[in-house]
């Protein structure tokens, strides 16, 4: 997962010097600056960074919803021109359709691909079973709690056989215990289906639990600040290990530092590079991007 590593056949996602600017009505927002990274197929990655740093924008680029201003976005080695059927994107607000029942929401991806109704529903029901929503199949999204909606969004993504799973803060609306429970579900599903997974999160624990690679981003315009390797993730027991705590502490320190840097930048103070080195050493195996 070195950003300068040449592209290999096994890379599922590759961003190469990507820039993206939103053209607003009043002003332009330079959301991403010179973003480069590679995600191997089947690799679980977590992205963490301050609000507004461009995390959702990165997912939109990989999903093919928007095209970069400059640079390249490659999926399975080819430049992406639009949404593809084998990528699933779970949006920050879940993207459910209130006029469709739970099962029809879960089956939506398959329906759009032209799968027969019966087959789509059977697959969707299985996915609902996986996330524990089977008995709500005939309800409407508005009848579900926030956590159930998030599970439904997950079921919809699961019903599709995907090789790339993109998730934008999929568990943010949950209480701590339900959240851990669903983190375990996410982990199991990734292990079973082994898609490349990009999880955007604001939770340090979640990033360390679900990301074998963690990308830490800078405030706007978003750049990759640091890439943290987290090879020991992969079991629900990981949460109880000392290494997990260490990684969380390290990530927390980097985030605090990143916020401090942003604040200093706001008041026009240069940031001492030496402080950066200390943080990097603490993080262990990491690469400065």
């Amino acid at each position, binding site marked *: 997962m070195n950003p300068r590593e040449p592209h290999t056949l096994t890379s599922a996602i590759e961003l190469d010097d990507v820039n993206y600017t939103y053209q607003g009505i009043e002003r332009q927002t330079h959301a991403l600056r010179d973003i480069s990274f590679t995600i191997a197929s089947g690799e679980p990655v977590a992205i963490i960074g301050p609000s507004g740093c461009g995390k959702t924008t990165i997912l939109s680029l990989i*999903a*093919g*919803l928007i095209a970069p201003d400059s640079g390249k976005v490659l999926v399975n080695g080819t430049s992406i021109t*639009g*949404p*593809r*059927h084998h*990528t*699933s*994107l779970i*949006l920050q*607000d*879940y*993207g*459910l*359709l*209130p*006029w*469709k029942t739970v099962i029809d929401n879960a089956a*939506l*991806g398959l*329906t*759009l*691909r032209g799968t027969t109704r019966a087959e789509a529903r059977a697959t969707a029901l299985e996915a609902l079973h996986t996330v524990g929503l089977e008995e709500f199949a005939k309800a*409407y999204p*508005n*009848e579900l709690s926030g956590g159930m909606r998030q599970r439904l969004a997950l079921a919809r993504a699961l019903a*599709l056989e995907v090789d790339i799973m993109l998730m934008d803060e999929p568990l943010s609306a949950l209480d701590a215990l339900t959240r851990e429970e669903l983190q375990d579900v996410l982990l199991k599903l990734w292990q079973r289906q082994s898609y490349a997974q990009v999880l955007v999160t604001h939770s340090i624990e979640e990033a360390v639990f679900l990301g074998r690679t963690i990308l830490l981003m800078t405030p706007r315009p978003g750049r990759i600040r640091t890439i943290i390797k987290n090879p020991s993730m992969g079991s629900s027991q990981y949460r109880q290990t000392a290494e997990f705590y260490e990684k969380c502490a390290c990530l927390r320190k980097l985030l605090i530092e990143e916020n401090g840097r942003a604040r200093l930048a706001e008041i026009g103070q240069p940031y001492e590079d030496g402080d950066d080195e200390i943080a990097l050493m603490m993080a262990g195996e990491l690469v400065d991007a």
Partner: protein
Amino acid sequence: MRSNLRIIIGYIVAFALIVVFWALASWLIKSPALPLPWDAIEQFFVTLPDTFSHILISLWRVIAAMVLGTVLGLPLGLYIGRSERADVLAAPLLYLLYPIPKVVFLPILMVLLGLGNAPKIILIAVVVFFQMLVTARGAAQAIAPESITSVRSLGASPLQIARHVVLPSSLPDIFTALRISIGTAIAVLFLSESIAGSTGIGYYIMNAWSRLDYVAMFAGIIAMGAMGVGLYEILNIIEYRVIRWKHITKR
């Protein structure tokens, strides 16, 4: 849940209220131009065998026109609501044409199409078409962008986006527009039937008036009211079936 019993009780009470005020007004005014309600109601039932064909033809005109106006106005409105490029031309056209009372086109329609069903149906259809166009456009513009993004990320084609997002999310507004359209459609129907031809409940009312048969005239007005109630209730039943999800949020 729509409870049928409650709806029926509601109608009975409303009907009783109207009869009471009508009777009071009739006693106060003491003019043959405003007969007593029970005389008009009796006349309505006595002449029903004769008026029935008028009611049927009027219903046919209204329903045909509403279907025609909706089938044309709905997709076009949704389309210009979603396409900024189409809206550049469509918006000024709409603002120019929408406020013009469409009944001014009745003479030219009669010259072109005669005195039969065609000019009446087309006139009402034009009125419904514009109401539908304006509402559908607004509804399509108001769609939450996340809904579109979510199906787009699943690889939906423009047609699939229209079918799975744009149309269903606009339906509640569409039904409101249809409900408003029923009122205007019946008003325009009355006007066009009273001006031309010798069929329809509008003609029946005007004809009774010219004979100074006020009881028959009010019997016709009752028939027209009954027609409206029938249309509204048909619409309610369809709406309840089609947008169940909306009723769940309201509870």
